[in-house]
Each structure stands twice: as structure tokens, then as C-alpha cells.
């Protein structure tokens, strides 16, 4: 009996010691097993496709007078008119894209389409496509509404063009019914464009050759802050040309009843007119001078040294076209063609 009691006491003592050890073990610094951790997946950056050399090409049948909205963020853009009722877009060295039909005509053919980026960057603008080279073919009767970031754009042979880019040169030619172009930094060149024309650049030159109205009342407007404006054979009857730091050059005819306003704050104005031109001239200048190779008869003048000078005169036989020239610091000159 005593033996059984002793064995029981020893067992209780052993259990107590084992329990004590197990309780003190963590306090002595034995590492506890770590709690299970949830696996964290770090987001991986999307693959950079800026140097992707792949080419993508798509085409869609459209109405002949389709309106295309196009946004291109990078690359050289060439838009051409062709004699097929189809839009084709070819992108070299850029992500994939798709057409988006915004509206359809009565015959079911798209009358308004746009392109979208099929591989947009996270948080990026998926309305814009990009590439090293972007080529677009549109029906000749199409109108283009272009927005761009840093692109050099060439547009040829369409009905109407509206282009607005942050930077880069814009070259437009052979347009039937109007051009509106704006670039934040770059030159604008327009050739053989007809209709209402409005051109603007912040820093860059504007050059227009062989252009005119397509309808009565179409006007011409060109404006740059830092750059020259050169107009050759522009036949609009209402012309408004303005630059702050740059010269204005005009070579062509003045239409009867037209109003031609050209001004620069810091630059010269040079006008080349046919020898038999007749118009009414109003010239204002401060520090520069006025010279004319064409005969003119002064109607009123206000010429005082170191002051604002103004001349109102009939050039040649006079006429109902009005030529308003203004330069705050530069020469105003009229030359014979």
C-alpha cells in the first residue's frame, strides 16, 4: 500500500515538474512557432511595350462622309484620303488598338468612329493610341478630329480637319471644307486648303500657301505668340493675322470688299501686292517706319517723333478693300510684286 502511495506521489511530482517546465519554457526565450502568415502578392508592373516592334493593322467599312475622332499620344502620324469607303489604321511599334463605332447612318454604315487602345496602361488614357508610326487612310469625304500629345502630323486629301496637339509640327494640305489647327509648340503648314481656316501655335511659325474660301463668308485667322506668319496666295476676304514676337509676310492679291488685318507687336510686316492694287490703308506703328513701293495718297496722318504714328491713305486708285497694318516695333513695308 505504501509502495502504491509512493508511486502515486512520484507520478504527481513528475507531472508537476513537467508542467512547470512547459510553462517556463517560453519565458526562457524558446522560440514559439510563428503564426501562419497570409501570402502577399505584390503587384507587378505591366510589361513595357514602348519598344515593341510589332505592327498592327485594322480596317473597317464606313460611310463616305465619315467623321473620325483620333487621339495619338506619340509618334509620326500620316493621314491620307483615298477613294475607298473604308478606314484603315496601321500602327508600327505600338500597342494593339480597336475601332469604336460611335454612330451609324441609315444604311447601317458607321458615320462616326474612333480608335481605342486595346492595351491601355493602368491609369492611362485608353482613348489614345500610340506608335512609332501611325498611318490612317480615310475616304476623301471624311472629316478628321485629331488630338495629339507629342506628334508630328501630316494630313492630306480630306474634307475637313480639326487638329489639336500639345507639341509637334502640323502639316495639312489639300483640304476642301475647312481647317482648324492648334499646336502648343511647333509649326503649322497649310497648303491648298479651302474653307474656314483657323491656325494657332504658341511657339512656332505659320506658313500658308494657295488657300482660300470654299463658301461666301469663310474667314482666315492665324495667330502665334513667338513666330513668323507667312501667307502666299491666300484669297480669303476676311483675314486676321496676329503675332507678338515675329514678322508677318503676305504675298498675294487683295479682293474687293475684303478686310485684311495684320499686326505684330515686335516684328516687321512685309506686304507684296500686284502693281495695280487699289485699297484703303491704315497703318499704325511706333518705333519703326513705313515704306511703300506702290503709290499712295495720304488722307490723314499723325506722325510725331517718339510717339504713336498712324497713316490712313489710298493705295493706288483706292478701293473698297481695307488693309490694316500695325507694328509696335518694326518696319511696315509694301512692295510691288
Amino acid at each position: 500500500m505504501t509502495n502504491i502511495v509512493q508511486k502515486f506521489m512520484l507520478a504527481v511530482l513528475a507531472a508537476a515538474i513537467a508542467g512547470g517546465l512547459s510553462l517556463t519554457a517560453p519565458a526562457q526565450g524558446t522560440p514559439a512557432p510563428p503564426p501562419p502568415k497570409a501570402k502577399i502578392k505584390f503587384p507587378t508592373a505591366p510589361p513595357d511595350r514602348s519598344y515593341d516592334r510589332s505592327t498592327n493593322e485594322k480596317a473597317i467599312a464606313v460611310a463616305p462622309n465619315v467623321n473620325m475622332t483620333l487621339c495619338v499620344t506619340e509618334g509620326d502620324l500620316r493621314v491620307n484620303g483615298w477613294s475607298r469607303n473604308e478606314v484603315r489604321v496601321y500602327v508600327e511599334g505600338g500597342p494593339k488598338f480597336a475601332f469604336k463605332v460611335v454612330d451609324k447612318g441609315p444604311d447601317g454604315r458607321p458615320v462616326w468612329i474612333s480608335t481605342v487602345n486595346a492595351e491601355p496602361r493602368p491609369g492611362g488614357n485608353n482613348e489614345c493610341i500610340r506608335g512609332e508610326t501611325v498611318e490612317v487612310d480615310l475616304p476623301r469625304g471624311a472629316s478628321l478630329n485629331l488630338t495629339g500629345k507629342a506628334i508630328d502630323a501630316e494630313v492630306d486629301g480630306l474634307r475637313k480637319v480639326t487638329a489639336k496637339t500639345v507639341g509637334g509640327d502640323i502639316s495639312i494640305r489639300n483640304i476642301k471644307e475647312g481647317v482648324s489647327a492648334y499646336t502648343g509648340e511647333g509649326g503649322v503648314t497649310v497648303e491648298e486648303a479651302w474653307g474656314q481656316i483657323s491656325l494657332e501655335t504658341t511657339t512656332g511659325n505659320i506658313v500658308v500657301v494657295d488657300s482660300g474660301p470654299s463658301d461666301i463668308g469663310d474667314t482666315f485667322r492665324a495667330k502665334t505668340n513667338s513666330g513668323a506668319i507667312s501667307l502666299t496666295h491666300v484669297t480669303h476676304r476676311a483675314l486676321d493675322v496676329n503675332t507678338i514676337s515675329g514678322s508677318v509676310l503676305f504675298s498675294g492679291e487683295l479682293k474687293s470688299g475684303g478686310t485684311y488685318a495684320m499686326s505684330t507687336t515686335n516684328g516687321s510686316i512685309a506686304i507684296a501686292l500686284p502693281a495695280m492694287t487699289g485699297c484703303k490703308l491704315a497703318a499704325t506703328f511706333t518705333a519703326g517706319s513705313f515704306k511703300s513701293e506702290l503709290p499712295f495718297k495720304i488722307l490723314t496722318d499723325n506722325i510725331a517723333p517718339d510717339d504713336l504714328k498712324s497713316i490712313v491713305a489710298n493705295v493706288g486708285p483706292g478701293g473698297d478693300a481695307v488693309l490694316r497694318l500695325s507694328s509696335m516695333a518694326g518696319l511696315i513695308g509694301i512692295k510691288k510684286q
Partner: protein
Amino acid sequence: MTTNCLDIGIIQSFLDGELSGSEITRVSDHIADCDACAMLVSHAEDENAIVFPALAREFNAMVPTQRLWARIEDSIQIEKNAAPWWQKLSGALSHLLHPQIGALAALLIVVGLFAIYKLSGPAPAPSNEVARAPRTTAAPTIVNVDTLPPSTKNVAAPVARSTQPTYENASYRAPRRVTTEAPLNSSSVQPATATDAAYLPGEASYVKTIASLNKSVNGDQDPNVMSASQQVSFARDMAVVDNTITRMRDAVKKNPKDETAKQMLSSAYQNKIDLLNSVAQKQELVASLR
């Protein structure tokens, strides 16, 4: 072709817009007559066109000028003043959230409460009479010093110094400081209300428009909007336009009936508005393409 050609330094200054009005006139007249100088100007412009884009990154990372710093500080101050009171309160409390500062503040509060308790003496026993008592308990008590025992003379002396009741206006808030916010570009645009009398007829609306455009253009300056060369061009064009405005204002003041000067002044103001609008337009376009 003239014999006295311009120095390249003068040509560069001309292109950078650093010359005065009369010098600009002289140089532009000379260039108009001198083919060699016109060629030099053309070369210099070409060089600028190459150099500025190449150095655009360096120019964009330029050290902020003193004027820029001043404008930044002004903007910060204006934002601080415009912040609602709960933001200011939460900002102040956020400092206390630091454990050490919080502990220090708690300690100070405890010490302060203890000091107040000790200085205010034994608290009166709560009774309804005290609660009903009028607030004129601080009425002056006139104590005759001579009647006091010597041990209490020193203590009572300050009270007995004045036999007349004294009143002070308690103020728990610091006097509010009246500040007027200056426009961001106050150097170039004067506030319309202050100088309305000095404006020529029709000028005030231009000035107001320019002030609001200045605010929007200066308030949201994105380095992606204008490159270094564009910033130089913009500053030069702005200087040219401002110079024209000043000259035409003088001309109109001299002869208020001079319609040509008035017209030129209007077109100079319009040029300035267009110049600012061009920046705003570009900002808008850049934002829409993000």
C-alpha cells in the same frame, strides 16, 4: 547693307527679350536694313532652336528663383489661412498624438491642476447659497491695515494697497489680426478695386480678366506644359506686351482723344489675355490627355 554690324551679344539679348524698347527698335530697324545681321539673327535663332530642346531637362530642373520661392510661400500662407478651423484643430492635436508629447502634456495638466488646487485654497463647501450667490463676490474689500495683526500684515498688504475698486476687461481670445490677401502676381496686376480710379475707360475689365487668368495660370503650373525654351519665349512675349501696354497707357493719358492709341491699348491688352489663354489652353489639353 550697313557697315556697323551688331554685336552677337546684342543679337542674343534681342532674341532673349532683354533689350529696352528703344534698343529693340534700333536693333529691328538695323536688321531690316542689314542682310549680314539678319543672317546672324537667323543663325542665332537656329542655335537656340537646337540648344534649348537639348538643355530642356536641365532647364526644367533649374533652381527656383527668389520670386518663385516668394510665390510658393505666399501660396502656402494663403492655404493656411483658408483652412477651416477643424483642420487647424486636428493639425494641432495631431502633434499631441505622439506618445512622449502626450505624456508630457498630461503631466503638465496634472501639475497645473495641482498648483491651481493649492493656490486657490480650500474649496468652499458646496451649498445652495454659493450657487445662488451673485457674481459680485469679487467686489473690492477695504481692509484697514492697522487693524490687522502683525503676522497678517504682509499678506494683506497687496489687497490694501488700493482702496478703490479696479476693473479690468478680461480677454480670453487674442485680438484677431486682420490680413488682406495679396494677389499671386501682384507685381504685374494691381487689384481692380484699389485702383479703379486710376484706370482708363474700359481698362478695368481687361485688368480683372488678366488677374483671374494670372491666378489660374500661376496656380496650376505643370512642368510638362511648357518647356524651358517656351518659358523663355513666354516671358519675353509677356515683357513685350507689358511694355506696349505701358507705352499706350501713357499715350492715352497724354491725349485722351487719341482713338488710335486707345485701339492699340485694347489690342495690347487682348494680346496679353490671348497669351495667358494660350497657357491655360495648353494646360487643359495636357490634362485631358493624361
